[in-house]
C-alpha cells in the first residue's frame, strides 16, 4: 500500500469510535431512563457515522477491494488499534459517563485540530465531528457534574469510575510511528502538544463536579500496539459474528 502510514493513522482514529460505539450499543434499552438511552444512542450513532467515513476513506486508500465492513469486522484482535479506554465495560452508568467524558475531551481536541489537516477528507470528517463531539462532551460533562454533585452515593460511584479510568488516559496521547509521520506531514495531529491542555480541561470539570483529581502516576497502555485487555476479545466475538459466520455476503 502506498499510503500505509495514512491508512494506519486513520484506523487508529477510527477504531476508537468503532469500539466505543459498540460499547454504547450494548446499552441501548438498558439505561437509567429514556432520555439517557436516547442521548447515548445518539452518541453511538455519531461515532458509527464517523467510523464509516474513516473506513470508507481507508478502504479507498487501501485500494484492494476491501470495504468498510471488511475493515471493521474482519481484522484479528491484534490489528485493532483503539486505546484501552474505549473497550472497557459498561460496569455501571458512572463508568459509562466517566469513560465517555475522558474520551470526549480528547476527541474534541482531536477533531478541532484535525480541521487544519492538509488532507481534505479528514478536514471534512473533522468539521462534522466537531459539532457532534461538542455535544458528546457537553452531555458527559453535564452528567459528570450531576453525579459528582448529586447524592453521596452518586459522588462515590462517579469518583470510583474516574479513578478507575484515570490510568487509561495517558495512552490517548501516545504516538505510533505512523502517527508521527502523518503528523509531520501536516495531515495528522501531534497529540503530545495537547496533553497538558487535556488534563487542564479535565481537572476543571472534575473540580466543578466537586470530585477529586486522581494522582495515580501509573498508566495502562497497549491498545495502540494492538495489545488489548481481555474485554476486547468478547467485543469482537459479537462485532464479527455475522461477517465471520456468513462470509462474502451482502446484507
Amino acid at each position: 500500500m502506498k499510503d500505509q502510514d495514512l491508512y494506519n493513522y486513520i484506523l487508529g482514529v477510527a477504531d476508537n469510535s468503532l469500539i466505543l460505539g459498540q460499547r454504547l450499543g450494548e446499552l441501548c434499552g438498558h439505561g437509567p431512563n429514556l432520555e439517557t438511552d436516547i442521548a447515548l444512542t445518539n452518541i453511538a450513532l455519531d461515532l458509527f457515522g464517523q467510523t464509516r467515513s474513516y473506513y470508507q476513506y481507508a478502504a479507498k486508500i487501501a485500494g484492494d477491494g476491501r470495504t468498510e465492513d471488511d475493515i471493521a469486522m474482519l481484522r484479528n484482535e491484534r490489528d485493532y488499534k483503539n486505546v484501552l479506554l474505549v473497550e472497557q465495560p459498561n460496569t455501571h452508568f458512572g463508568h459509562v459517563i466517566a469513560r465517555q467524558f475522558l474520551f470526549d475531551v480528547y476527541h474534541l481536541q482531536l477533531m478541532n485540530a484535525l480541521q487544519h489537516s492538509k488532507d481534505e477528507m479528514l478536514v471534512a470528517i473533522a468539521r462534522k465531528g466537531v459539532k457532534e463531539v461538542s455535544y458528546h462532551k457537553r452531555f458527559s460533562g453535564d452528567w459528570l457534574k450531576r453525579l459528582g454533585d448529586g447524592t453521596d452515593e452518586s459522588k462515590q460511584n462517579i469518583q470510583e469510575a474516574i479513578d478507575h479510568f484515570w490510568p487509561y488516559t495517558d495512552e490517548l496521547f501516545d504516538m505510533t510511528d505512523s502517527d508521527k509521520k502523518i503528523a509531520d506531514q501536516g495531515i495528522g495531529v501531534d497529540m503530545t502538544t495537547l496533553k497538558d491542555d487535556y488534563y487542564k480541561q479535565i481537572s476543571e470539570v472534575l473540580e466543578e463536579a466537586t470530585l477529586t483529581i486522581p494522582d495515580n502516576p501509573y498508566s495502562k497502555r497497549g491498545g495502540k500496539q494492538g495489545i488489548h485487555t481481555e474485554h476486547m476479545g468478547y467485543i469482537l466475538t459479537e462485532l464479527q459474528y455475522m461477517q465471520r459466520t456468513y462470509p462474502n455476503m451482502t446484507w
Partner: protein
Amino acid sequence: MSEKEVKNLEAIFEARIARDEKIEPKDWMPEKYRQTHIRQISQHAHSEIVGMLPEGNWITRAPSLRRKAALLAKVQDEAGHGLYLYSATETLGISREELFDQLHSGKAKYSSIFNYPSVTWADIGAIGWLVDGAAIINQVALCTTSFGPYARAMVRICKEESFHQRQGYEIMLTLCNGTPEQKAMAQDALNRWWWPSLMMFGPRDADSPHTEQSMKWKLKRKTNDELRQQFVDQTVPQADILGITVPDPDLKFNPETGHYDFGEIDWDEFWQVVKGHGPCNKERMEARVGAWERGSWVREAAMAYAEKQAKKKVAKAS
C-alpha cells in the same frame, strides 16, 4: 357536581367527539375516558420501550456498519416514541413513575409480540416488515382519534414507523436476493413471526368486548378482525415479491370477497403469551425492571443536583 350537570357535560363531550373535535388535556372528560386512554396510551408507550429489547439484541451483532447504524437509529426512534407517548399519558394526570410501576408490576400490558425472541439477523428484517407493518395498520386509524395529544403523537409516530417498515422489508429483500442460506434465513423468520404478527390485532371480534366503546371514542376505527384481514391482504403479496412462503396451508385468495382467507390462529398460544408465559415475558420484564433499579441512583443524583442548582439560583437572586 350534580348528576345532572355530569350528564350534561357528558352529552357535550360526546357531541364534540362526534363532530371530530379534539379533546385536550385541560378539557373536561369522563373518568372512564381518562382511564381508558391512560391504559391504552401507556400500553402503547410500554410496547415501544419493551420493543427496543428484541431489536437491541442485534445491535452488537449487526452484519454491516450501515445496518448497525440503521438499527440503532430505529431503536432510538422507539425510545423517542415511548417518550412522546408517556408525555401524552402524563397529560391525563398520571406520573411516569406510576406508569413504570404499572409496567414493572405486571399491571400494565405491552404488545405480546415482543415476548418472542429475535434469534437471527433476519428477525430484524421480519420485525420491521411484519411487526411494524401490523403496528402501522393499528396506528394509522389513531391519527384521527379523539384525544389530541395521542392523535398528534400518532401522526409523528406513523411517519417514522412506515420508514422502519420499509427498512425492514428492504432487509428481507436483500436476504431474499442473497445466497440460498440468506433466503432460508428470511423464510425461517417469516415462519416464526407470521402468526405472532396476526395475533397483534388481538382476540377475535366475538371475544373483544371493549370494541364498541372504543369505536365511539375513535380509539378504534375498525374491528380486530377487519384490521387483521387488512394486514393479511397487504402482506401476502409482499411475501410473494420476496419469493418466500407464508406458513399457512389454508391461506388462499378468495376471488369472491377480494380478500385472502387464512387459517386459524393458535389461540392457546395467544392467551399463554398474554397471560405472561410466552417465550420471553419474564426476560423482558427482568430487563426493564433491572434497568430501572440499576438506574435509581442515577435518577436520584439528577434530582438532588437539580435541587441544589435551584437553591443556588434562589440564593443568588435574593
